[in-house]
């Protein structure tokens, strides 16, 4: 494969994401304008005069036509202006950016945890159909999709914090006695290591463990299910029979021939998995008082502070579109046929 065509492929995918992003922006714009009641009266504050409300209306451009308002909205977005949070008085964009690493750290750790447990489980289940591993796989996947994340989280807190006392109190990213590491990446696990602070690293890890496990349990189910189904399909195909008949060793057959081909459908389901994860993230953040963007949006929601909620929805959507783009590129790296076909 020539290098240039890969670049071209990525470029085409990036361009293909533009109309989707545009759709996302239109929807979030409509959601902002669909706020209950009069946004101007709301942004001006509860006890303001009719004159002040009129001023706010003009300043926000709410006295113009909808298309004009849309242009204003996009212009504001272009300079990263998502409005002001009434509760904290700071720009929403700054608030979201400062809290994003907490959410991403949780999501990534959970994702890695889910992949390293679900994929081997699925592979083992597929290689030994009907065995206890297979049954375990089936039970985990069915239970995993049925368990509401917030209930699992609470149960884990009860068992590991209240009864066993192994986990710290479910109150955020770091024990309040410890100070946060100097910000380099925003990921506490990495930052504490960079600062060489072993105690803080351990504290971070123990705080992260329960929320990450909660999220991972939820994510495991679709991954294990897909890996098992896809591996079963591949293992019953002719080329595996040929490989076996040629006397190749079991690991070679399973891993090089079976697993690499079985990986493809798993990667395509990652998009859906991320959709679930980002949603479940909000619930897990609430249960564990995790100071991420989900908690921020929920706090704003309770105080009827809508700008942060809309900013949050937009940020999540943009994040998700970018993740899907990454998955597409990863897919084309694993499977050259995708590149050839396009």
């Amino acid at each position, binding site marked *: 494969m020539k290098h240039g065509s890969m670049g071209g492929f990525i470029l085409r995918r990036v361009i293909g994401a533009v109309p989707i992003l545009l759709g996302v922006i239109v929807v979030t714009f409509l959601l902002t304008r669909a706020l209950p009641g009069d946004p101007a009266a709301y942004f001006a504050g509860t006890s303001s005069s009719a004159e002040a409300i009129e001023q706010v209306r003009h300043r926000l451009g709410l006295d113009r036509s909808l298309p004009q308002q849309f242009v204003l909205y996009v212009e504001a977005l272009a300079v990263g202006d998502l409005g002001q949070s009434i509760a904290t008085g700071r720009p929403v964009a700054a608030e979201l950016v400062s809290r994003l690493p907490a959410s991403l750290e949780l999501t990534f750790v959970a994702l890695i945890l889910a992949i390293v447990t679900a994929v081997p489980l699925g592979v083992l289940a597929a290689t030994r159909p009907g065995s206890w591993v297979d049954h375990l796989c089936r039970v985990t996947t069915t239970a995993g999709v049925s368990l509401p994340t917030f209930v699992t989280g609470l149960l884990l807190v009860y068992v590991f914090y209240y009864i066993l006392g192994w986990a710290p109190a479910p109150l955020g990213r770091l024990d309040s006695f410890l100070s946060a590491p100097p910000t380099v990446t925003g990921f506490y696990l990495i930052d504490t290591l960079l600062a060489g602070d072993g105690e803080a690293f351990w504290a971070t890890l123990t705080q992260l463990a329960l929320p990450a496990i909660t999220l991972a349990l939820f994510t495991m189910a679709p991954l294990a299910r897909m890996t098992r189904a896809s591996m079963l399909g591949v293992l019953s195909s002719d080329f595996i029979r040929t490989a076996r008949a040629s006397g190749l060793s079991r690991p070679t057959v399973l891993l090089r021939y079976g697993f690499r081909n079985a990986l493809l459908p798993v990667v395509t389901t990652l998009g859906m998995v991320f*959709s679930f994860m980002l949603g479940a993230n*909000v619930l897990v953040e609430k249960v564990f008082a995790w100071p991420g963007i989900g908690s921020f949006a929920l706090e704003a929601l309770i105080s009827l502070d809508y700008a942060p909620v809309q900013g949050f929805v937009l940020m*999540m959507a943009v994040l998700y*579109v970018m993740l899907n783009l990454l998955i597409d590129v990863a897919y084309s790296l694993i499977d050259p046929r995708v590149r050839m076909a396009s």
Partner: protein
Amino acid sequence: MTIAAVPATAPGKFATRLRHLGYILGENPVTGFAFGLLLFLVVVALVGPSLVPYDPLTTDTAMALRPPSAAHWFGTDQLGRDLFSRVVVATRLDLEISVLAVALSFVLGTLLGAAAGYFGGWTDAVVIRVIDTIMAFPLFVLAMGIVAAAGNTVSNIVYATAIINLPFYARMARTEVNVRREAGFVEAARLAGNSHARILIAQLIPNVLPPMMVQVSLNLGWAILNAAGLSFIGLGVRAPTPEWGILVAEGASFIVSGEWWVALFPGLALMLAVFCFNLLGDGLRDLIDPRRRT
């Protein structure tokens, strides 16, 4: 509801289906168990509110936060309300929300998707664009945004859940109709002078119903999870209305002080319902998918 909707046009076909159902249930006791569970949930939703031992809203502060006992099977909450009564009464609301939402997205999604698959062209382009835009959001987050923007009511939870489920039905209906668009029986109906609408509704949609029903069952569980998740974060259903998500949210603050029952029992009820619909979905797939039939 899901069982009755399995198309049974002729009595003979119905008998075959019934026998097949019996065979599936015999072969897979788990599906039989799921059907039993569904029946149980429906009965609880229908007659539960008139059978519960206590009024779900009556407070009794002298009995606050008591663990499960003979008098209060699931214990009491921070206001002394009987949790068993609250969990049972909540069943109706939770099932109502999810059934309404799934029914709405099933009807709308099927019509949109079928029209897109049948007409192609710009109808298809518009429908695809709408679906892609919905799918561009993490779905639960989109539902949050919709309820936050449209207002904090139960009907908005239903609409939001319906919207985020819409793509699954529309996509499936579109693909299934698209492959049958030029089929012989469709051509015959067209030559016989049927209108497009009639061909779609009388010929094509009945043919795509079986796989859609599996989707409905799997979706119901997901819809309950979503609705409960929304009320858990404080959207939609408001206290003191008993609803599983909000009951768990009320119990969440007592977990760290060891009062596990307040959150656990509504959580278990929620899990049971979702589990039931997921098992049922798998069972229905066995019933309907010809490739899995033996």
